[in-house]
């Protein structure tokens, strides 16, 4: 729940007065608010939590962390809005 996922800021746009980035997480692209990281530029890597970037990190760290989270199978939980059906009880 408190995991932040590293992603690459592919493009920055102004949307409803909010500085928004199209952030790439591997093959998935999500919008993320960049208001908390005013220093972030296109091409930078940011840690994103529930659609908000909370820190800027270097590329090597970001890629390593991403690969690890992917191997742990937690990315689907953090990035997908679709819940799995409940287990039959």
């Amino acid at each position, binding site marked *: 729940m*408190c995991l932040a996922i590293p992603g690459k800021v592919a493009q920055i746009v102004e949307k409803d007065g909010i500085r928004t980035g199209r952030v790439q997480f591997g093959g998935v692209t999500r919008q993320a608010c960049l208001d908390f*990281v005013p220093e972030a530029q296109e091409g930078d890597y940011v840690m994103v939590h*529930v659609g908000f970037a909370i*820190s800027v990190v270097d590329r090597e760290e970001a890629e390593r962390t991403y690969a690890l989270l992917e191997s742990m199978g937690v990315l689907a939980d953090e990035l997908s809005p679709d*819940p799995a059906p409940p287990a039959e009880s």
Partner: protein
Amino acid sequence: MKYLDEYRDARIARALGAEIRRRSTRPWVLMEICGGQTHTLMRYGIDELLGDSVQLVHGPGCPVCVTPLETIDRAIALARRPDVTLVSYGDMLRVPGSETDLFHVKAEGGDVRIVYSPSDAVQLARSQPGRKVVFFAIGFETTAPAHAMAVLHAERLGLKNFSLLVSHVLVPPAIRTLLSSPNNRVQGFIAPGHVCTVVGYRDYEDLVREFRVPIVVGGFEPLDLLEAIRMLVMQLEEGRAEVENQYVRSVQYEGNRPAQEAIARVFEVADRKWRGIGPIPVSGLRLKDKYAAFDAECIFELATVCAEEPAECISAEVLLGHKKPTDCTAFGTRCTPDKPLGAPMVSSEGACAAYYQYRRHLVSIASRG
């Protein structure tokens, strides 16, 4: 160490583990606060790597787990209203309230939506002006700035149909409660890295001064956690009690100022009840009166029903680090992730759920009869 073998830095991890074992002159009891860290420790068998040199106990840092039963019941009551769209993070849907959960309310026709970000809930309110959109805002300090920004955004857009059902908790008051317990046995803490990315670690200095307990801000990867454990063991062996930062690549002393400013504009500190633990003074956040128009508790008449946890559940002792999940007689039998009895089993990040997922082979259910 079959778990660690899957990890490409296994060699470094083993070396760190050996260093920790060599440095430890007695079995120090250390607690990680965050459920994400619990998950990593279990996933990679780090506790097994450390043997008897360190005993790891698991803290109350899963916001899904500690959201009170009464608050889940309120979310369910809201979701059943025909005029309300209840919006939530996916992991809240299967958390049982006192009678049912949000997933079943959705299956019965309740308008329950899952989103990845609170921003999506704001957009939903904007696109559906005829619906009252309530976002179920749970979490620790990491999530609070996002929820604050959602309120500020809704205000700027002039939305009258957007509100939050807030259940926000804070980490330092929980640590204070743990340390104040006469039964406390935790000698060092790994503070949660992403919480500290937002709020920094100034608040942890007060705890260190008051309780003379070492605290190390740690990340979420196996090497992060092993390094944080090593730093804690070094402090304990040398008789030091300081706040140190292992997770320097994301955490700065002051934290993220713009995020903190957003929290301070919208929220104020309040007493909160924690599922499995009970009420903790000034341990959470609520919306300021100025934002009452965005507070579902003010907008809707929500009954306050006091719900009791099953007597067999020892979640309070697990969340406070007094007992391990496997000490519970219901663990893995009458209490499983599919049918959880209490807080630490309800979310995958809860300590009991993590034990169930990764350690089940160690529990002889048959031997319990």
